[in-house]
């Protein structure tokens, strides 16, 4: 349970002095908005009517709310794409108006829907934009692009010279994220970054963002209109109503279990214990450890062992400890265990229970094999464990 993106730990991270060493080092900066107002010309009501908010360093803060409530406007005031009518915004204690717009923006990553890559530039050139503006030399830019493509899960040599139209939507979005992180900015702003991709790709991109954030600890402000996305990604959620008025600003757990008012309750919607499933992770649950066998073991011995353990199936591992199949005992034939056909669908220990349930439903075992780093086998998670966990959460909430 060392997931530092979860709010409980995140609060501790925040308490650490900036620049603390170790893998959990916070490279983000605190953002403070004080009474920020934006009134567009020719409109009576302010689009943002006095927003005051502190975004802690190294956290992901999600802005959610109905369409037109002022999320995008609030976000763009942080990198001065929109100038506030009044109020102040500080990043790392410094008023953002003390430096030129362009200097400010080069220190803030900006990722928008679809990635918005420049179609006439290659992936490499797209990612290199801000480093180039900052005057980095060629070899440093080259290395950085390699590093970033790796980080977002694209093979650098295969993709660096492609143009955006030669990429899928999900890949374009990955490059968009890489571009936002290019110059290692302390703050990254995202406006519905995963709005333009299909649900499965979106889930994958969200997982990747979380794992990137586990490594980098940026301050990420992310706009979405999808409450589920907010719950999944956010260390904290800001729920806004018309005029960017803060209805509630808290961790996903609190927003789910104790909505501030009817507006929030409505917005969060029904089925909040189901939603809580995307808060909990497989690592929060006790794993079961059924009989395992290695490819090449004697079938007779394995069968005997499984019967002794009361198991009707065994998890087969390869010589490097990675699960390759989960056959029923009656499926075992011949003398030796062979590598089973077909692909085993497993889940990562850091997956949400939501994702784990998906995998369980597609397995005849009503359970899913869990893997850790480098696909090492860790155990099995089943329906019983998940339902027990939900009941536990419900009880805690009831208190």
């Amino acid at each position, binding site marked *: 349970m060392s997931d530092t993106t979860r709010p409980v730990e995140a609060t501790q991270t925040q308490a650490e002095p900036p620049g603390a060493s170790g893998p959990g080092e916070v490279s983000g900066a605190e953002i403070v908005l004080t009474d920020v107002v934006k009134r567009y010309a020719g409109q009576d009501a302010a689009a943002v009517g006095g927003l005051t908010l502190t975004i802690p360093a190294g956290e992901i803060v999600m802005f959610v709310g109905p369409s037109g409530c002022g999320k995008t406007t609030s976000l763009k005031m942080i990198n001065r*794409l929109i100038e506030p009518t009044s109020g102040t915004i500080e990043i790392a204690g410094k008023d953002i108006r003390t430096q030129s717009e362009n200097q400010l923006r*080069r220190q803030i990553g900006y990722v928008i829907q679809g990635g918005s890559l420049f179609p*006439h530039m290659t992936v490499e050139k797209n990612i290199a934009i801000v480093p180039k503006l900052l005057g980095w030399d060629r070899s440093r830019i080259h290395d950085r692009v390699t590093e970033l493509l790796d980080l977002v899960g694209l093979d650098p040599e295969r993709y660096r010279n492609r143009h955006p139209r030669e990429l899928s939507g999900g890949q374009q979005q990955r490059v968009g994220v890489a571009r936002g992180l290019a110059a290692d900015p302390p703050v990254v702003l995202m406006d519905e970054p995963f709005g333009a991709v299909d649900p499965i790709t979106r889930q994958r991109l969200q997982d990747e963002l979380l794992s990137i954030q586990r490594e980098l600890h940026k301050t990420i402000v992310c706009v979405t209109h999808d409450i589920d996305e907010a719950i999944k990604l956010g260390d904290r959620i800001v729920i806004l109503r018309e005029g960017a008025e803060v209805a509630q600003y808290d961790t996903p757990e609190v927003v789910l279990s104790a909505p501030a008012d009817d507006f929030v309750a409505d917005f969060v919607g029904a089925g909040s214990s189901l939603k809580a499933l995307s808060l909990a992770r497989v690592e929060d649950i006790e794993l079961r450890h059924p009989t395992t066998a290695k490819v090449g073991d004697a079938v007779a011995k394995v069968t005997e062992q499984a019967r002794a353990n009361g198991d009707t199936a065994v998890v087969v591992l390869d010589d490097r400890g990675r699960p390759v199949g989960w056959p029923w005992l009656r499926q075992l034939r011949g003398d030796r265990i062979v590598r089973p056909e077909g692909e085993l669908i497993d889940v990562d220990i850091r997956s949400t229970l939501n994702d784990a349930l998906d995998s369980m439903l597609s397995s005849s075992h009503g359970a899913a094999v869990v893997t850790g780093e480098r696909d090492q086998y860790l155990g099995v998670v089943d329906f019983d464990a998940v339902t027990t966990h939900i009941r536990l959460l419900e009880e805690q909430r009831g208190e």
Partner: protein
Amino acid sequence: MWNFIHDRRSEIAFNTYQHALLVFYAVVIATILAVVIAVVITRIRGLDVAANQVSAIALTIPSFALVGLLLPVVHLGPTIGLVAVAFYAVWPILRNAVVGLQGVDPILLESARGMGMSEATVLWRVRLPLAWPVILAGIRISTQMSMGIAAIASYALGPGLGTYIFTGLSKGGVAANGLNYTVVAIVGIVVVALIADGLLVLLGRLTVSKGIR
């Protein structure tokens, strides 16, 4: 016919060269002017509509009238030819440049600014490269159009294949080589036009990003 060409081959070559050069200079000047004007226009709201109207009207001014208009202004012959041809060449390029620059997705522009590009960098690295294929299409139209206008200009003002057309027309009959003059001029202009167009296509190959072709 063959003898006709053979006897005058250096003169024909010279006139063809002059014709090509006139069009080349005129189109280069027109391109620079048109792109600069288009950049200014697309920054000021309302001006783009005006520009399109002006360009529509300008294209209907007969070239002879223009030459007459310009005579008192510019005194040197070849220069006035260049000015006249460039004047006509500006409009198709201008129209395409305005359309091309306006056609750049505003989301991309915002994204560019959001990353800290200055206005000049946005223009140079985003707007112009993205508008370039459209601008280049305008340059091709202008070049073709200029071939004809350069013929008229050279008749009035100086060297070029245009002189042959009118020599031919005024001489009339076959005996006086009239037809030969006209045919040589027309074939010469067509050949120059084809080569120019081919070169522009090649230029497009070399300068338009593979990502937007």
